[in-house]
C-alpha cells in the first residue's frame, strides 16, 4: 500500500489500474478530464484508452467491451450524460458481463459548466446503482467496488464524483496497479443484446426484479452508515457528508449516504429513532425525498421547507448556516465576513494571441448587424467581445443558427464552433441546415485540439489519447460531403484573408463554411513555435483605444498610450488593426 497526495481524478485513475480495467473511453469535460489524461500518459499502460468523439460514442464502446466480459470505465461530465443517455437507459436492460463503471462528474455551482444537473437522478431513472463519494479516498475505493458490484448484478454502475472530489486533493492510500492481460469474447445471445420489443419487455422485468437485492447489498457496504448519538439527526450525502462531519456536535446523530438506491426499511429505521431530521445534500433533494417518504410523523428539514438551497455548492459555513436556521446548533460558528467591494474582476479570458479573438473581431466587422450563435469551448469567452449571442449545449451553434433563420429573422446568422465540438455533435446540425435550406455562415474555429478542457486530442489533431499518430481527417471534406458549396480555409492571423473570406460568404446563398485554422497558442508554444513580440511606437500612437478594445491581455493602456506587455505571443493581429500604424515587430524600428 502506497500513500500519496493526489488529485481526486488521479486517485480515480489509479483505482482503474488496480481493478484492473481493460478499456477506458470518454469525452473531455471539466471536472472529469484528467482521469483519461493520466491513464493515457502512463508508460506502463496495459489497457486500451481512448478519447471518443462524444459521450454517446464513448459509452457505446465501453458497453460493448463489457458485453465481451472485459472491465470498462467510461468518463464524462454531467452534461455529457445527456448525450449518452440513449445507450445508458437501455444498457440497464441488456446488462453487462464485464464490469462497466460510468464516471459522471457533476459540477455544483457550475464552476465550468452550462448547468447544475444532478446525475444521481439519471441513475435512478435508469435503475442502476450509483456511488457518490464523500472523500478522495472513498472515491478511489468506490471505483474498485463499483466494478465488483457491476459484475455481481450484471448492471452498469454509475460513479458520480463532484468538482470538489475530482479537483480536490488529499492523502490517499493506493493499492498496486495490476497489468491487464484479459481478452474479450462476445457470446451471441440475441435475447440479451437485441432489444426488439419481445426481448426488451422481459429485460425490463428482470431489471426491476434486481432492485430489492441491489438495495439490500448497498446497505451492507460501508458507504451508507449511521451513528445514533441524540434525538436529532443529520443525513448527508456525497461531499456534503464531509462538510457536516467537520461541524457536527457530538449529541446529533449522523447518517451518511454514498450509495443509491437507498434501502427504505434501513432508512426508516434510522429516521424513526429521532425527533427531527435534517437532510444536507447538494443539488436535487434526492435523499430528502426518500427520507420524507419514510419519515411518518418525524419532521424533516432540508430544501423542501426552505432551509437549504437547491442550487450551488455547499461548504462547511453554508452547512452551519442551514443547521442554525432549523435549530440544529453546529459545533463551529463561522464569522460573517464580506469580500472587499468593487475590485475589478479577473474572469478567465482568451489568451494573448488566441486565434479566436481575430475571428470574432472580423465577424463583427463584416456582419455588423449579425446574430452570433456559438458553442462550448474556450471561444464561449467571446461573449466578452460581444460576439457570442447564444450557447446552450455541445453542437448547438449551427442548429440554433438554422432555427433563427427559419424563424423569419432577417439579419445574417453567423455561427461559431470549435473543431472538437464540430466533430462531437456539430456535423448533424450542418447536414440538417443544408438539407432544410437554411441561409447562414458557419465559422469553424479550428485550433487543432480540445483546448478548454486541457488540450485533449481529437480526430482532427492527428494523434490519439496515447499519442499514436493517425491520419487527420479533413474538415473541408466533411463540410462538402454535407452539401456545403462554399468552404474556405483561412489563417485567422491574416485579417485581410479572413475578412475577405467572410465577405464572400456573406454574399453567397445557402450555408457557407469558413474554417479559421491556426493551432491553439498554448499548444503552439509547447511545440516550440516562437514568434517575435510586438511593440507600440508611443510617438505614433494616438491613444485611440482600438487595440485596447480588441481585448488582448497583452495590450495595456498607460497615460493615453497603448503598451504591449510580455504576454505578447506575436500573432501580429493588433498591428493589422492599428489605424495609425503604431504597432510593429519588436526591434524592427
Amino acid at each position, binding site marked *: 500500500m502506497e500513500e500519496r497526495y493526489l488529485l481526486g481524478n488521479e486517485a480515480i485513475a489509479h483505482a482503474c489500474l488496480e481493478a484492473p480495467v481493460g478499456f477506458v473511453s470518454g469525452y473531455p469535460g471539466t471536472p472529469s478530464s484528467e482521469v483519461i489524461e493520466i491513464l493515457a500518459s502512463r508508460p506502463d499502460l496495459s489497457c486500451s484508452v481512448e478519447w471518443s468523439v462524444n459521450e454517446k460514442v464513448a459509452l457505446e464502446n465501453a458497453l460493448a467491451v463489457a458485453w465481451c466480459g472485459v472491465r470498462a470505465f467510461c468518463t464524462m461530465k454531467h452534461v455529457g450524460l445527456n448525450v449518452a443517455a440513449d445507450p445508458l437507459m437501455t444498457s440497464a436492460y441488456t446488462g453487462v458481463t464485464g464490469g462497466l463503471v460510468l464516471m459522471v462528474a457533476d459540477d455544483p455551482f457550475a464552476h465550468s459548466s452550462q448547468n447544475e444537473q444532478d446525475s444521481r437522478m439519471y441513475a435512478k431513472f435508469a435503475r442502476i446503482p450509483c456511488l457518490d463519494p464523500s472523500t478522495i479516498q472513498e472515491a478511489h475505493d468506490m471505483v474498485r467496488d463499483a466494478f465488483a458490484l457491476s459484475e455481481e448484478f450484471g448492471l452498469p454502475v454509475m460513479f458520480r464524483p463532484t468538482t*470538489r472530489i475530482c479537483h480536490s486533493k488529499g492523502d490517499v492510500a493506493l493499492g498496486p496497479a495490476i497489468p491487464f492481460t484479459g481478452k474479450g469474447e462476445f457470446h451471441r445471445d440475441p435475447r440479451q443484446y437485441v432489444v426488439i420489443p419481445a426481448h426488451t419487455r422481459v429485460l425490463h422485468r428482470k431489471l426491476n426484479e434486481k432492485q430489492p437485492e441491489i438495495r439490500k447489498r448497498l446497505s451492507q457496504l460501508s458507504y451508507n452508515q449511521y451513528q445514533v448519538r441524540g434525538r436529532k439527526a443529520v443525513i448527508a450525502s456525497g461531499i456534503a457528508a464531509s462538510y457536516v462531519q*467537520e461541524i457536527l456536535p457530538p449529541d446529533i446523530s449522523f447518517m451518511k449516504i454514498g450509495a443509491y438506491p437507498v434501502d427504505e426499511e434501513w432508512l426508516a429505521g434510522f429516521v424513526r429513532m429521532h425527533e427531527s431530521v435534517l437532510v444536507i445534500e447538494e443539488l436535487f433533494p434526492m435523499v430528502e425525498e426518500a427520507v420524507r417518504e419514510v419519515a411518518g410523523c418525524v419532521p424533516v428539514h432540508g430544501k423542501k421547507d426552505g432551509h437549504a438551497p437547491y442550487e450551488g455548492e455547499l461548504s462547511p459555513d453554508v452547512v452551519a448556516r442551514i443547521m442554525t436556521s432549523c435549530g440544529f446548533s453546529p459545533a463551529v460558528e463561522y464569522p460573517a465576513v464580506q469580500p472587499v467591494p468593487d475590485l475589478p474582476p479577473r474572469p*478567465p479570458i482568451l489568451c494573448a494571441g488566441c486565434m479566436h479573438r481575430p475571428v470574432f473581431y472580423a465577424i463583427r466587422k463584416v456582419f455588423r448587424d449579425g446574430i452570433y450563435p456559438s458553442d462550448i469551448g474556450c471561444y464561449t469567452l467571446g461573449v466578452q467581445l460581444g460576439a457570442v449571442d447564444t450557447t446552450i449545449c455541445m453542437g448547438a451553434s449551427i442548429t440554433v443558427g438554422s432555427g433563427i433563420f427559419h424563424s423569419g429573422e432577417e439579419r445574417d446568422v453567423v455561427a461559431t464552433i470549435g473543431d472538437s465540438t464540430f466533430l462531437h455533435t456539430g456535423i448533424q446540425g450542418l447536414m440538417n441546415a443544408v438539407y432544410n435550406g437554411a441561409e447562414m455562415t458557419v465559422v469553424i474555429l479550428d485550433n487543432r485540439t480540445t483546448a478548454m478542457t486541457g488540450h485533449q486530442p481529437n480526430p482532427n489533431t492527428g494523434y490519439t489519447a496515447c499519442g499514436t499518430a493517425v491520419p487527420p481527417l479533413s474538415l473541408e471534406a466533411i463540410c462538402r460531403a454535407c452539401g456545403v458549396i462554399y468552404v474556405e480555409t483561412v489563417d485567422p492571423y491574416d485579417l485581410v484573408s479572413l475578412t475577405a473570406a467572410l465577405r464572400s460568404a456573406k454574399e453567397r446563398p445557402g450555408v457557407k463554411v469558413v474554417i479559421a485554422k491556426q493551432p491553439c497558442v498554448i499548444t503552439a508554444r509547447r511545440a516550440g513555435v516562437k514568434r517575435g513580440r510586438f511593440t507600440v511606437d508611443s510617438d505614433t500612437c494616438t491613444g485611440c483605444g482600438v487595440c485596447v478594445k480588441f481585448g488582448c491581455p497583452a495590450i495595456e493602456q498607460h497615460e493615453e498610450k497603448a503598451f504591449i506587455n510580455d504576454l505578447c505571443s506575436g500573432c501580429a493581429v493588433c498591428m493589422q488593426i492599428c489605424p495609425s500604424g503604431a504597432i510593429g515587430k519588436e526591434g524592427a524600428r
Partner: protein
Amino acid sequence: MKGSYDILVVGIGGQGTILASNILGGACLIEGRTVRGAETHGMAQRGGSVESHIRIDGKFGPLIAPGTADLLIGFDMLEGLRYSHFLKPGRRIVLNCRMVIPTSVFVQGLAVPSQDEVIRALSRFDLCMIDGEEIARKAGSVLAANVVMLGAASHHIPLAPGSLVSAVQNLVPPKTVEINTRAFEMGREAGMRC
C-alpha cells in the same frame, strides 16, 4: 472541530498555485500528516483569478471557510486583496508586490487600487510584502517565484523547512531542482525580514 492549519494560496491562472499546493501536500506526507486541498482547474485557469485551499492535518472536506484561514499567500497583489476576507484578522499574509492589471480594467475603464491602497486595505493583517519575481530572478529563474513565495511564508507554515525543501525537490522538473531550492531558501530569508 477544525484541528487543521488552513492555508489559502491565490493568484492568476498560470502563476503556479497548483505546484505550491502540491509542495505543501507532499511535505505533509513526508511528515506522515493528513492533508486536504481544493483547487481551480478548467476554464477558470485561462488567465482568471485562481485559489488553492490547503488544510494541513485536515481530515474532513477540502474547503476553507471565509474568515478562518490561518495564512494567505498571494502571488498577485490584487488577488491577495480579493481573497483577504478568508484570513483571520491579525494573521499573516505573504504577498507578492507585483500586480497584473486585469484586461477588464483597460477594456471597460475600471478603477484599480494602487499599491498603497492595497497595503492600507490589508492593515488588519500581518502583511509581509515580497518581490517574488526579483528574488526568483536572482535565484536563477523568474518561473520560481511561486517557490520563493512559499519559502517566504514557510515561517508561518507548521511543517519543517526540511520537509518543504524535500517536497520542492521531489516535485519540480529535475533540471530546476537547484534553482528552486535556492529560490525557497532566498524566499525564506526574505520572509524572515518581515
